[in-house]
């Protein structure tokens, strides 16, 4: 042995860098020659990185920029109105640092309910640069010059060179400008000092942090309603950080990709077995062989991540113009969340590397003679205990239970345990996958030959099918958790959740005194007259109704007055109390929703669109008198379990009149009512511009506008979650069934040679896809129930385990049986091609 070692000539025992370079070169050549065989993995990584680049860029840039309204300043204070006390604050700030004032006076656009602002801002001030850009012309430089936004130019038919009477003075329009941080910002820009009655003044400033306290003191002493804001304080008010969400989705996505890729690289390594045997026969060490496979994985990861970045970035460049229009602010070409992009690219490479390292280890264990023969190594009979998987599930169950019990049973404060519990579910499912696969062998015993072979192969080649099964089950797990959590939350008819209104509905509520707005109109002589409205006025009920009518007219909608009864519903279901305003079922309201009197039970006290409310116990109706309103000093009377009739024609939104007291009940219990809200019903969805106009009008009418919010309905969430689970499962199956079947391509050749028809080939693929899909769905549903039972069993707020009684049966059946059926059908349709080489393995 010593003699042999002496022959090394001082070269490293494993060949060192030259050897690694030679192996890497070969891996690269293999990738170039065989990239089609790695297309699925490559496509998967490319799409994931491209989606991350585009998705995270859109998510991060959709909200206004974090420095919107600050320019380059660190702090801002808004004064409304700007008086002597505000001036005191500004003097203090000027003493400590540099200040730029932006003054605004709001004007109405004659003949419309829209407004614009006359704004004085130094075009080249110390901080306001990012809030102002020139589209054409030049900035105003004297009192008789003005620059306008394109919206204002359009409304007043202005162009550069025209003269415009604005702010009590004829001014030359010298430029078209915009606020890059808010393209909806409609204003007319004049030089500082040209706004006579500013309705709002914003002070942008930078001061040392130490001076901020003294400024804040002065501010609180003089204008306590204002606060010092900074980009950080504005960002902190938004708990959902798009970058964090992008990263969480990215990590989960890459885990799924890694699981799918393991199967892909295993089959690839199997296909290259002969080449690897050749390499070993001429002296490659195990390390070299591992390097071939893992270098291939790394190359796939690198190429996939670079391609993904290029595609994602190109997609962003193409989408950016329309995105800017929808986001209403200018977004830079390179305004990508670079950290997220970098992490995505690195994770893609790491995922591909780790996915290939397991088959790389396995391939070194194949004897060289076996490898050279190109025969697949016989599957080893490994008994994988289900105990580790169950231990992980139990640990997840306990952690989720602990999380659910925190905060006195409402689950608040148990976020770390919740996260850890959900994370532990995944290794639990991965470790249980081999056991579930072993079940297929037992099931197959009495199946017809093609099905038996397919099911048995799934059990025999668990290295490939196991990773695919894990990926499917994790996708289904996420989907099932969302479905069950949504079903348990949205099924509570007392604490009704969901969107507040339909998209063709707007609710009007009595609001605060109107903001100061200068109304411009023409008098009888045709002259423009400015009338300033101050916010000290208080509207009468008649004025409010008139205002509501004006808004409904402006929207072209039908106005329904909503009478509030001096009554309320009380009760608790699943730990949650009754929520939501109730109204009176006036004839006008019923007519508006097409409900005829004959449809109503004459003895019904309450009508509702909340499904299941009619059969629920524990609800009471309390009512007061004109002297003693309900809820103030206790009810004057009440009735337990009032007769409730479900009327599906009533609107379903949480702010809509989804539950109303009948006129019969109002008369029987002498309940008084008052008018406080209105509902505007349109023939079609209201546009953002219509809503914006309604808000502006409402602001001057002491009304508040409530339009449809972004909260989805329970069925929307459940349907999307079902679709997500099915698509993930089908995607994984599309990528893995071919790989699993290629493992046994030799058997397929034998079958074809012995006369098996396309029926047999189709059945093999269909059963493989269907069985893998069903097992993944089953495992995911089991995991989902473990998670939800674990969490709900100790969570009183969400009604405990009984909340799971409202299972969306159809969606779960779709995942459990529909998805595998689709997979089997697609597998059947796509698997009819006869193997190209029947007699032998293709030679390298």
């Amino acid at each position, binding site marked *: 042995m010593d003699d042999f070692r002496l022959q090394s000539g001082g070269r490293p025992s494993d060949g060192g860098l030259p*050897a690694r370079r030679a192996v890497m070169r070969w891996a690269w050549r293999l990738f170039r020659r065989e990239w089609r065989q790695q297309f699925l993995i490559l496509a998967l990584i490319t799409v994931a990185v491209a989606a991350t680049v585009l998705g995270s860029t859109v998510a991060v840039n959709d909200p206004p920029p974090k420095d919107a309204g600050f320019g380059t300043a660190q702090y801002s204070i808004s004064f409304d109105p700007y008086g002597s006390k505000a001036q005191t604050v500004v003097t203090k700030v000027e003493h400590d640092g540099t200040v730029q004032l932006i003054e605004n006076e709001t004007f109405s656009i004659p003949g419309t309910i829209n407004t614009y602002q006359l704004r004085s801002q130094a075009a080249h001030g110390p901080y306001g640069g990012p809030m102002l850009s020139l589209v054409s012309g030049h900035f105003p430089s004297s009192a008789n010059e003005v620059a306008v936004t394109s919206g204002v130019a359009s409304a007043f038919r202005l162009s550069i060179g025209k003269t415009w009477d604005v702010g009590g003075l004829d001014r030359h329009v010298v430029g078209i400008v915009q606020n890059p941080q808010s393209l909806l910002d409609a204003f007319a820009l004049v030089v500082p000092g040209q706004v006579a009655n500013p309705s709002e003044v914003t002070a942008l400033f930078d001061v040392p942090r130490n001076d901020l306290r003294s400024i804040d003191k002065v501010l609180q002493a003089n204008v306590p309603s204002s606060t010092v804001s900074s980009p950080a304080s504005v960002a902190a008010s938004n708990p959902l950080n798009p970058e964090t969400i992008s990263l969480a989705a990215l990590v989960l996505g890459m885990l799924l990709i890694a699981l799918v890729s393991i199967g892909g690289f295993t089959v690839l390594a199997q296909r290259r077995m002969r080449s690897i045997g050749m390499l070993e026969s001429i002296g490659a060490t195990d390390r070299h062989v591992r390097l071939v496979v893992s270098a291939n994985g790394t190359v796939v990861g690198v190429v996939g991540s670079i391609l993904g970045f290029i595609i994602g970035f190109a997609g962003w460049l193409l989408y950016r113009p329309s995105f800017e229009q929808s986001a209403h602010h200018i977004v830079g070409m390179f305004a990508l969340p670079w950290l997220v992009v970098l992490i995505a690219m690195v994770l893609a490479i790491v995922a591909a590397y780790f996915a290939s390292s397991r088959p790389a280890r396995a391939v070194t264990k194949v004897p060289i003679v076996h490898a050279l023969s190109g025969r697949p190594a016989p599957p080893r009979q490994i008994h994988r205990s289900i105990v580790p998987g169950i231990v992980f599930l139990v640990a997840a169950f306990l952690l989720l239970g602990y999380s659910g019990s925190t905060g006195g049973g409402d689950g608040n404060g148990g976020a770390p345990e919740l996260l850890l519990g959900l994370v532990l579910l995944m290794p639990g499912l991965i470790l249980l996958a081999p056991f579930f696969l072993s079940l297929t062998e037992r099931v197959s015993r009495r199946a017809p030959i093609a099905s038996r072979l397919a099911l048995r192969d799934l059990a025999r080649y668990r290295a490939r099918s196991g990773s695919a099964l894990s990926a499917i089950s994790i996708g289904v797990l996420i989907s099932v958790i969302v479905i069950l959590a949504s079903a348990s939350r949205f099924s509570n008819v007392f604490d009704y959740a969901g969107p507040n209104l339909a998209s063709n509905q707007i609710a009007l509520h009595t609001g605060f005194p109107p903001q100061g707005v200068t109304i411009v109109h023409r008098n009888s002589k045709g002259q423009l007259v400015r009338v300033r409205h101050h916010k000290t006025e208080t509207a009468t009920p008649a004025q409010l109704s008139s205002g509501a009518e004006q808004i409904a007219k402006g929207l072209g909608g039908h106005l329904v007055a909503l009478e509030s009864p001096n009554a309320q519903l009380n009760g608790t279901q699943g730990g949650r109390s009754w929520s939501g305003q109730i109204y009176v079922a006036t004839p006008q309201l019923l007519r508006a929703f097409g409900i005829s009197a004959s449809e109503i039970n004459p003895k019904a006290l309450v009508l509702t669109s909340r499904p299941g409310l009619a059969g629920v116990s524990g609800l009471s109706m309390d009512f007061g008198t004109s002297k003693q309103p309900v809820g103030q000093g206790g009810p004057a009377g009440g009735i337990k379990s009032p007769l409730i009739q479900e009327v599906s024609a009533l609107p379903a939104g949480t702010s809509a009149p989804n539950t109303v007291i009948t006129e019969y009940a109002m008369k029987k219990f002498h309940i008084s009512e008052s008018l406080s809200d209105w509902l505007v019903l349109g023939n079609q969805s209201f546009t953002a511009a219509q809503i914006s106009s309604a808000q502006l009008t409402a602001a001057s009418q002491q009304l508040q506008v409530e339009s449809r919010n972004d909260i989805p309905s329970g069925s929307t969430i459940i349907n999307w979650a079902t679709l997500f689970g099915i698509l993930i499962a089908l995607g994984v199956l599309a990528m893995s069934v071919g790989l699993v079947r290629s493992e046994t391509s030799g058997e397929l050749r034998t079958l074809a040679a012995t006369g098996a028809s396309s029926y047999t080939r189709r059945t093999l693929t269909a059963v493989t896809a269907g069985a893998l899909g069903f097992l993944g769905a089953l495992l995911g549903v089991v995991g989902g129930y473990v998670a939800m039972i674990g969490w709900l069993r100790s969570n009183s707020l969400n009604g405990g385990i009984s909340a799971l009684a409202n299972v969306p049966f159809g969606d779960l059946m779709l995942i459990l049986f529909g998805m595998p059926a689709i997979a089997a059908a697609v597998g059947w349709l796509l698997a009819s091609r006869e193997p190209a080489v029947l007699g032998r393995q293709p030679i390298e």
Partner: protein
Amino acid sequence: MSMLELRKISKSYGQGANEVDALTDIDLSVERGSLVAIMGPSGSGKSTLLTIAGSLEEPTSGDVVIDGVRLSGMSRNDKARLRRRSIGYVFQDFNLLAGLTAVENVSLPLELDGVSLKKARSKGMEALERLGLGDRATNYPDQLSGGERQRVAIARAVVGERSLLLADEPSGALDSLNGEAVMRMILSACHGGVAAVVVTHDAKLASWADRVVFLRDGKAVDETLPPPTPEELLAPDVPNPA
């Protein structure tokens, strides 16, 4: 000292009732510069013997000694190092790596051993030129004919300072003309001091060897000089081997 020594080599596959003896107590010694042919019917254990001699497979019992070094107890990595430094292996179906050019295939064992790319390429080119393939060096295996591929495989087997050449049916996939050319190359390597063992079915090619070992059912049933040529048979002082 023999370049290759096989001492009481046995190899069996399977276990219990399924156990099959592929080789039983084989002894073989190959000196430097000599060419040994191994013949025998299919399933007689010829290829198994060669793979054991080439450290590609472990014997069930017995010792393999290469250039005085026993393989038993050697780690996988040490065996790999031995293969790339001392043993050249030629296969029936060439076993060239499809992603590498002819010269890259030939220089690969040197590169795996840590020889710099430039030096390895230079030695690879030398080996190819010796075998008349200098102008085909940058071609990929699928751009070469069967005979050319086998010549590249031989160049890879002799490149560097290999002292043991093992060839398993090196002419099996070639026509007779190319088969003879291959044997001539192997013989030429032997003349340069390389010990060679060739497995073949072809008695005509075996006649090139210094010695022929006959295997039947895993046992060496005969070991003899090459079959005599017609001229030798006609000579009065040559005994009939039968």
